[in-house]
């Protein structure tokens, strides 16, 4: 780890101000950033912690949505969303291990947009709104590619609003080592449409599987997915699975998610 200055603001405004400093980097739960720093793979001049900003924490549930403060931990989501949105709660409860779940945050996960992370799939499949200190961004416009988002330099996610589907399920097939999603499929059935988001699989990061959405909107059944496949060329190939394998897992996990809805 290289040395850096550490700021711990208590308001969003102060955090935004701190982030405008040269070489500033925001840290939420630090579950990705801390290992990166320890390996000397990043050298921010200033780390701006969100840990002391109470308005970034907490969950509010209304009839149609769950709004999660950006600095809310996975463990808190797992606990507080259990009744209102069990699929989201279940997703949160299966990220990493207890230590990760009690440090890692929703905002951190979504802002980082790791191609194997779980939350981006939930955001995309529910049509969530990413709320920042300056605007509201639809999930469809937010995830731009692996580790890339629509966030501006010193823009800060303050909360994420997840619409609650009529039914939803997330199926994660774990990468054997990291237990991130080798392929994760989040399926949301709303009254008028079905949304399917896939994480872990594609070179370009989380994506909506529109062909499956169309078929499931017409008839919400695992059988509707028969014969459907994502494009193998778009999939990741690595030591944990070939493109063909991931292509298969996308279909299998989506089918299982539909069946579990």
């Amino acid at each position, binding site marked *: *780890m*290289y*040395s850096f200055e550490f700021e711990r603001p208590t308001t969003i405004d102060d955090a935004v101000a701190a982030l405008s400093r040269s070489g500033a980097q925001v840290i939420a739960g630090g579950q990705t950033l801390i290992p990166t720093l320890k*390996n*000397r793979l990043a050298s921010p001049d200033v780390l701006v912690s969100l840990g002391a900003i109470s308005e970034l924490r907490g969950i509010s549930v209304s009839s149609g949505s769950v709004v999660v403060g950006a600095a809310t931990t996975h463990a808190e989501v797992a606990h507080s969303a259990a009744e209102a949105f069990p699929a989201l709660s279940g997703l949160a409860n299966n990220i990493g291990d207890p230590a990760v779940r009690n440090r890692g945050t929703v905002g951190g996960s979504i802002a980082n947009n790791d191609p194997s992370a779980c939350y981006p799939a939930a955001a995309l499949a529910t049509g969530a709104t990413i709320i920042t200190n300056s605007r509201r961004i639809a999930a469809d416009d937010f995830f731009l590619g692996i580790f890339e988002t629509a966030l501006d330099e010193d823009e800060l996610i303050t909360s994420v609003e997840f619409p609650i589907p009529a039914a939803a399920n997330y199926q994660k*097939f774990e990468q*054997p*080592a*990291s237990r*991130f999603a*080798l392929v994760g499929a989040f399926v949301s059935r709303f009254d008028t449409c079905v949304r399917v988001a896939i994480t872990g699989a594609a070179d370009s990061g989380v994506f909506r599987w529109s062909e499956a959405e169309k078929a499931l909107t017409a008839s919400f059944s695992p059988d509707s997915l028969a014969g459907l496949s994502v494009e193998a060329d778009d999939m990741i190939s690595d*030591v*944990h*699975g*070939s493109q*063909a*394998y991931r292509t*298969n*897992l996308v279909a*299998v996990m989506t089918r299982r998610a539909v069946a579990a809805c």
Partner: protein
Amino acid sequence: MPRDQGIGASSARREDVRFLTGNGRYTDDFNVHGQKYVHFLRSDVAHGRIRSVNTLAAAAMPGVIAVFTGEDLEGIGGLPCGWLVTDRHGEPMNEPGHPVLAVGKVRHVGDPIAAVVADSVAEASDAAEAIEVDIEELPAVINMAAALEGGSLVHDEIGTNLCYDWGFVEDSREAVDAAIAEAEHVTSLELVNNRLVANAMEPRVALGDYNASNDESTLYTTSQNPHVIRLLMGAFVLQIPEHKLRVVAPDVGGGFGSKIFHYAEEAFCTLASRRLRVPVKWTASRSEAFVTDAHGRDHVTKIDLALSKDGKFKAIRTSTLANLGAYLSTFSTSVPTWLHGTLMAGNYTTPLVYVNVRAVFTNTVPVDAYRGAGRPEATFQLERVIDKAARELGIDPVEIRRRNFVQPDQFPYATPVALEYDTGNYPATMDKLVEIADLDGFAARAEESASRGRLRGLGVNCYIEACGIAPSNLVGQLGARAGLYESATVRVNATGSVTVMTGCHSHGQSHETTFPQVVSDMLGIDEGQINVLHGDTANAPMGMGTYGSRSIAVGGSAIVRATEKIVAKAKRIAAHLMEASADDIEFADGVFSVAGTDKSVAWGDVCLTAYVPHNYPLDKLEPGLEETAFYDPANFTFPAGAYACEVEVDTDTGAVEICSFAAADDFGNVINPMIVDGQVHGGIAQGVGQALREHAIYDSNGQLLTGSYMDYAMPRADDLPSLVVDHSCQTPCTHNPLGVKGCGEAGAIGSPPTVVNAVIDALQRGGYDVDHIDMPLSPSRVWEAING
């Protein structure tokens, strides 16, 4: 009735008190006043010629004490190899040098190029980044077959990437070929024994502390054998005689073989401390551990098994490429040869065996012993080919093994690969397995799995292990450059408590619990009155350490011998006190008595007399009560067992779940059943890790693709079912005083083929034409095999 003390009791692990309360004193917990810190600058390319290393800027950085490169260590010996293998033609192996810091070339990612000593870890790391290294990258040699076909050389001076071409038994070669050519049936299999990273919980640490006042060096290190390190480093690398060198290996957080070896960092820290006159400490990061701790396994084998139509084994022929990595690690050369070839008879009466091993240098981390060391490689290929043969011949896998077992009345049994098994009862062990694994109930369980859309499979196999490698004069003939005895000093204190000093080393084996159980039985005193010291060359006599499941069989026997000497001397003291002849003294339950009389003296009285010798035969007997013994076994011990595993395969994803695992082991006599259970549990977990999860993968440029836990998959608790282990089948070892065999590696040896056999069974029951999948049987590999 289970005992609550002594041999056979499940005494609670006394180590746990400190480990579970955070009071363990691991190597990194040792700090010496004024110590400085080392950061090693390591090669990030697998193979290259060092054009220049400029340390000037680094040396001027804040906090830097000194910067060393390979040139600064001129005159220092290289790291020695502890076993000379002679090849098929009677020629010695190729033995290239292994410098402490790279000289001329770098040969693997992680090879140390320079070392910075600074006031803090951060300053040392900062300065290392300022070292300018100019390396001309050379093509990396990664694939073993390609390495032998020419091209780039890992060590230019030997003109080849071949270390040796070993044949065993060379005189059997033609007879084996003929038997295979004439056989009624031959089953062949090509397989890979996957490369593993040991991943001990505690990364390696070295702290060199030179004391100028007496010219003595102390090295604190994560070692399984501090005396061996003292000898290798002192005599071969740094030329420091033993009386000026102390090696301390305190609580060590796991080794699994990887902490047997003498590593460059140990020598560097000791040397740097002497040169700089300050204590010098290095603690490996986990990332460093991945590219510097010796790796394990990495064999590619073709095996042929000749059988009669009714399944009797006639001959076995194997041809193996064994990866040694870039340098010869301490015992690397013995693993694919004497620890592997000699096990190829397994539990069976196969009359003819020929083993060929070509050991190859590559631009990868050195490969050496890892839990089982050669024996898992032997067992895996043998038990896999037997399983395949059973399927080809339509014989039940349990039955084909039974037909070929060495029978109980055949012991001692001389195998065609040089070993003499002293004892065993393989049919009884298999009977026990059938019972504890409920093999008869498999069909019903398979049906239940099918109802949930899962394919269930059953894998069965046997293993034999050779523990406590010995005797020294034999292994010397085979090329070992070390003896393989063990030492013990039993010090009886004046008030009757006992301190046992052993040359063995406990890094998870619970010696502090089990060794007192042995002594407690022999002396008739409470276990709590006995403690064990190990891991410090200053307190224990020269011993060879702990590996190869040797500690109880060899070290325990040394303790028995030393304790026998104690009893003999104590009887003479007791005889004096009771004015009787020593021959008439009986000793039981801590009381000395004169046979046929009611005269007795207690243990404590005798001990006190030894140290306060007022009423004492000083003319005939020295005062004090302390004895040392060295024990050199007459033979190996041969634990054996039969394992069964049931799996469910999800054919949609290729995921394998282990539903049950049963192990029936014959360890001979058992000192502490609970600890033996734990050893088997751990071994099975490691074997399952190899079978399903773990894989050190290099790309063609020599970069380790699975160099962190993000990609290197360790087995986790939820990968395993509750394990059923049994060691009630006991054929005591015939040649050591405790009748014990060794249990540390059994699980890791026996479990990988069991798991693979089970997965293949499941797939074949499901109608898939799959007869082998290389480990690890990751979901993607299983799915590719099904859909390939």
